[in-house]
């Protein structure tokens, strides 16, 4: 590499992406123009976690003006095949509920209409008959032989069960002085990009071909999955991406089932179809990281040296095994020994299905689950053996002279000096200072703790690691899978300027800027001379199955491929220049926008002029140059081989190292965590753009902080989803995220062209467990589970809370679902008999129940109502059944009711008492208890309680107006209201 080649790479230049994004000129998918006649889709989703679908009645929806088509599971089965499943199991995976709904939020029908508002209107008119089935929510329960099965074709809810053995773990455990273990329940969460899913799909019946534009981020191995599902050859499925993306963090891999669904919608509707997911859909039904139950044991010597590990992991992938799952479990398979030199290991991996949203890629992908167990265990080892946790880490780290180091389960750690990184972090992060702060805080009786975590951050996934989920025999049958093809194309136009195209599908990471730096260095130009096109089109661009934006592969793999393409072009240009400048090709250098003779810089040509030669005067090229117009380079590292017979797998190419330490304080009263100091040391090989690396670290840290302290995709025991809005799924804000101290050492990767490694996911692996270790240190407790919410920590620091005050009304059976209760009073200016009669009159009820469309009287004491209710952002139509009991006219009644709608269900009981006074006024007192399930339960108690109070108040206000006004003309009512407002009575 020449001196000039160092000029741009490694500098924090301003991003070329930013000017457009800062001025509102971004081109995200919902900003793009669509073909005339494009229709809009909305999706009806299951309110139940587990139910048989007995009937879907779509006639009324289809008849609504503006509606073109309503698509159900039957249509999808007719036009597609099941999505392939990543394990050998006799189950189907459809992008829409077929016969059964298996999670809250699963699509049940799609309406295609002239605009989104109309499409959502039509959703209200679809009637679905569900037969509820017991929901399986906890992964442990899923193992139970007697548990409700999700798939009749599967003999249990265990979809895969594999055991692995590396070295001699049995002997190591038998010989070791100590056996120390830990149990972990890692919760579900998601990085929730601010932009949701979006798709514009069209189908050409003449060519039987689909053209689908979406924010899909890769890996493009999924292209084959989609093409197969849509029953077209690969060349008849054109996937494209928009120029800009509103973030992904892995999540937009999970859009792919919707690509199939919207492809079908476009085909049925005969027009292009656009669908933009809303936030409530995204939280409930897009995709999630896996939750995992882990038992991890270590065989440990007296000095804290770990001889062997025994992993038992139960991975909960939700209701379907969607490609590439169970990849979350196997992505880390080569790295189950973390940063440590541990030669013996046993592993048992089970994959279970439960009635929760299917899982997929999410920043960290398997790393958080593994390191939470491993690094919590390292702290436990130190505590139980009364050793310094830092000493236990030191004693076990892979030795600095051992690289490249082959781990017990097959990963080849490319480079590193973990000891140097650790000692630099302790020194520059000032561990001594942190310990002094802890001691001072503790002397004052405050709860202060210090935590550590050492992790290896894998990047550039081996496309073959997922086949470790299969047995060697199954793999042999399927044929080997491996590698990590990266590609880049560089072109010269007739004016001699440079364009580059990549298949890395950036989602906000500034790929265009960094590639311009790398290519500029290679060709002696400025980054501003290079235009990089990052949107992707499978019909036109170079790509392969590994293309896309995941496993932190950009800096290590894609930049390398771009440099290779630039180098090839440069070599040809050098030969053309040599002929023109009459020197040897080895004498040619590229610098300052010129191509010149190294020893006589005046003998030069402008780069642009030389670069145009192949267009204008190809006959002047030396005979060994075919063209110097366009070069496409593909690059795959030879180190990424398929799993061996012994199940050893080099699951990733690069391995960065992170050592984190933090000090935090827990408020004794509120249980809130305050991070005092956070230090994160990174070795990500060669740093290509320090500003962007800092951005990746700080952003990953914020995601990890959210996962550690606030966020959880929580489910009720009946499978209701409890985190359905951003008011319930708590994402950290600027108030919660402190600035971490970022430190670096650089040990370049010998396996990548530029020496770079991935850096985007490491803190999602290291930070949750580092914070948990600090909390455990502060509280002196062994078992802690994420998220570390104030309620959880307060329970650990204080006595148990007193029970809530007893309620007056009869309580519903022990609440499995979101409970709702309240009581109140209303006054109506009419005698009790008039109020009583009004309450039993369907005509009056229909006019005073808020959002009521119709009331039908089934019997004297049984009513059926059709109402639209909104709870916060969740608005939907419900069919309500109300039965009256214990009627004492005109004094009291008990109401027993239920409501079922697309957004959920409720059952409840209430009582109403009427009392008259001398002035002819009736005082109505009421109380109610209800349980809410389905999507409505996801909006949270605060909103539900408030909404219920408002609806009931509106009802009684309307009742008061109606009953008081039955015999009065309208003008009189108006006058009375006016006078009442003025504080007078007529």
């Amino acid at each position, binding site marked *: 590499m020449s001196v000039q080649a160092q000029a741009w790479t490694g500098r924090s230049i301003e991003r070329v992406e930013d000017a457009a994004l*800062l001025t509102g000129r971004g081109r995200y998918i919902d900003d793009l123009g669509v073909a005339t006649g494009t229709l809009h889709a909305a999706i009806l989703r299951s309110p139940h976690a587990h139910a048989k679908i007995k009937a879907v009645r779509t006639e009324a929806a289809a008849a609504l003006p503006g509606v073109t088509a309503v698509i159900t599971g039957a249509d999808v089965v007719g036009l597609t095949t099941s999505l392939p499943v990543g394990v050998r199991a006799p189950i189907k995976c459809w992008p829409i509920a077929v016969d059964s709904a298996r999670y809250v939020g699963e699509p049940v029908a799609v309406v295609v209409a002239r605009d989104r508002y109309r499409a959502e209107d039509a959703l209200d008119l679809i009637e679905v008959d569900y037969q509820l089935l017991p929901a399986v929510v906890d992964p442990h329960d899923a193992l139970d032989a007697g548990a409700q099965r999700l798939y009749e074709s599967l003999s249990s809810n265990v979809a895969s069960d594999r055991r692995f053995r590396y070295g001699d773990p049995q002997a190591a455990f038998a010989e070791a002085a100590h056996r120390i273990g830990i149990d972990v329940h890692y919760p579900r969460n998601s990085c929730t*990009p601010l*932009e949701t899913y979006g798709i514009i799909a069209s189908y050409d019946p003449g060519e039987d071909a689909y053209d689908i534009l979406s924010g899909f981020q890769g890996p493009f191995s999924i292209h084959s999955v989609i093409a197969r599902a849509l029953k077209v050859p690969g060349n008849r499925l054109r996937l494209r991406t928009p120029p800009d993306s509103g973030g992904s963090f892995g999540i937009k891999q999970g859009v792919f089932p919707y690509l199939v669904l919207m492809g079908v919608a476009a085909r049925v509707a005969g027009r292009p179809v656009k669908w933009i997911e809303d936030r409530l859909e995204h939280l409930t039904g897009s995709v999630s990281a896996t939750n995992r139950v882990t038992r991890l044991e270590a065989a440990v010597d007296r000095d804290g040296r770990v001889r062997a590990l025994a992993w038992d992991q139960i991975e909960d992938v939700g209701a379907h095994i969607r490609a590439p799952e169970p990849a979350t479990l196997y992505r880390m398979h080569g790295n189950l020994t973390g940063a440590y030199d541990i030669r013996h290991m046993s592993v048992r991996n089970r994959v279970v299905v439960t009635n929760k949203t299917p899982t997929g890629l999410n920043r960290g992908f398997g790393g958080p689950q593994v390191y939470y167990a491993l690094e919590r265990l390292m702290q436990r080892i130190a505590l139980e053996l009364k050793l310094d946790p830092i000493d236990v880490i030191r004693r076990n780290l892979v030795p600095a002279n051992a690289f490249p180091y082959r781990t017990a389960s097959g990963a080849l750690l490319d480079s590193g000096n973990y000891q140097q990184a650790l000692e630099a972090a302790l020194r520059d992060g000032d561990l001594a200072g942190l310990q002094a702060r802890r001691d001072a805080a503790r002397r004052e009786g405050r709860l202060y703790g210090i935590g550590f975590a050492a992790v290896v951050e894998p990047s550039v996934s081996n496309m073959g690691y997922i086949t470790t989920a299969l047995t060697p025999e199954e793999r042999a049958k399927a044929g080997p899978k491996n590698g990590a093809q990266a590609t880049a194309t560089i072109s010269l136009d007739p004016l001699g300027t440079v364009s580059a195209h990549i298949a890395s599908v950036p989602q906000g990471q500034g790929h265009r800027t960094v590639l311009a730096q790398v290519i500029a260095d290679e060709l002696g130009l400025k980054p501003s001379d290079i235009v990089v096109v990052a949107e992707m089109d499978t019909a036109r661009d170079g790509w392969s199955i590994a293309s896309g934006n995941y496993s932190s592969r950009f800096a290590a793999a894609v930049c390398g491929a771009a440099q290779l393409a630039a180098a090839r072009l440069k070599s040809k240009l050098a030969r053309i220049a040599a002929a023109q400048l009459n020197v040897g090709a080895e004498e040619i250098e590229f610098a300052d926008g010129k191509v010149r003779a190294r020893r006589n810089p005046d003998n030069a040509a402008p780069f642009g002029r030389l670069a145009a030669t192949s267009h204008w005067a190809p006959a002047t090229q030396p005979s060994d140059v075919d063209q110097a117009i366009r070069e496409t380079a593909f690059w795959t590292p030879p180190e990424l081989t398929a799993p061996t017979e012994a199940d050893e797998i080099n699951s990733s190419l690069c391995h960065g190292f992170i050592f984190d330490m933090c000090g935090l304080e827990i408020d004794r009263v509120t249980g809130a965590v305050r991070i005092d100091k956070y230090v994160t040391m990174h070795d990500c090989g060669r740093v290509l753009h320090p500003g962007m690396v800092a951005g990746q670290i700080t952003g990953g840290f914020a995601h990890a902080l959210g996962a550690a302290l606030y966020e959880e995709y929580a489910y009720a025991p009946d499978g209701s989803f409890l985190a359905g809005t951003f008011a319930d799924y708590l994402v950290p804000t600027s108030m919660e995220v402190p600035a971490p101290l970022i430190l670096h050492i650089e040990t370049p990767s010998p396996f990548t062209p530029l020496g770079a490694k991935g850096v985007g996911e490491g803190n999602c692996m290291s930070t949750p467990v580092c914070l948990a270790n600090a909390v455990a240190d502060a509280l002196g407790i062994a078992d802690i589970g994420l998220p570390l919410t104030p309620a959880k920590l307060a329970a650990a620091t204080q006595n148990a809370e007193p029970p809530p005050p007893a309620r007056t009304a009869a309580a519903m059976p022990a609440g499995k679902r979101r409970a709702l209760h309240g009581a109140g009073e209303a006054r109506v200016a009419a005698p009790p008999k008039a109020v009583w009669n009004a309450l039993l009159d369907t005509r009056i009820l229909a006019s005073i129940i808020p959002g009521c469309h119709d009331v039908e009287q089934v019997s004297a004491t049984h009513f059926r109502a059709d109402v639209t209710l909104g709870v916060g952002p969740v608005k939907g139509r419900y069919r309500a059944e109300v039965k009256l009991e214990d009627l004492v006219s005109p004094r009291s009644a008990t109401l027993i009711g239920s409501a079922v709608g697309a957004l959920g269900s409720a059952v409840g009981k209430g009582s109403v008492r009427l009392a008259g006074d001398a002035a002819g006024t009736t005082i109505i007192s009421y109380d109610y208890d209800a349980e809410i399930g389905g999507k409505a339960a996801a909006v949270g108690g605060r909103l539900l309680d408030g909404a219920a109070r408002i609806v009931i108040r509106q009802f009684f206000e309307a009742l008061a107006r109606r009953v008081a006004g039955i015999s009065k003309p309208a003008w009189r009512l108006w006058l009375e209201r006016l006078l009442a407002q003025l504080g007078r009575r007529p």
Partner: protein
Amino acid sequence: MPRLSASDRCSVRFLLNGRSVAAEAEPRMLLTDFLRHSLGLTGTHVGCEHGVCGACTVQIDGKPARACLTLAVQVDGANVRTVEDLAPEPGRLSVLQEAFRRHHALQCGFCTAGILMSLDAYLKTNPEPSEPALREYLSGHLCRCTGYVPIIAAALDAAKRLREATAHA
């Protein structure tokens, strides 16, 4: 407040980025959809449609407001400003926008328009904000890419430069 019928389209006249606009909207149409799809100003983004994430923040009569919680018909007669109005001219950025670019205070850029609109309004009335005050003020915006650290740095830097520009003027 006038009573509107759900089935009617209503005329909405207002000032948008300094120019008067007249258009029609159904009463239920959100201001976000109206700005983006009826008027073609796609710089205002939709992140949650329930008022938590702040991506859709615009200025209504000079004050930051959630466009996703505002109906189009509500801005009749108002002065609305969106991110498209921040740059002094095409090809140039405002002091605040430049600070964001310099500090890498955006990655995917999806939350950025809302944050800029909030900060633009805030710095006008609070030219010398403290870091804690900025952190609290910006807590009404969610960003999933940056971890907020560079956003705070950019806002402090922009405030300083704006003060210097005022002092020199």
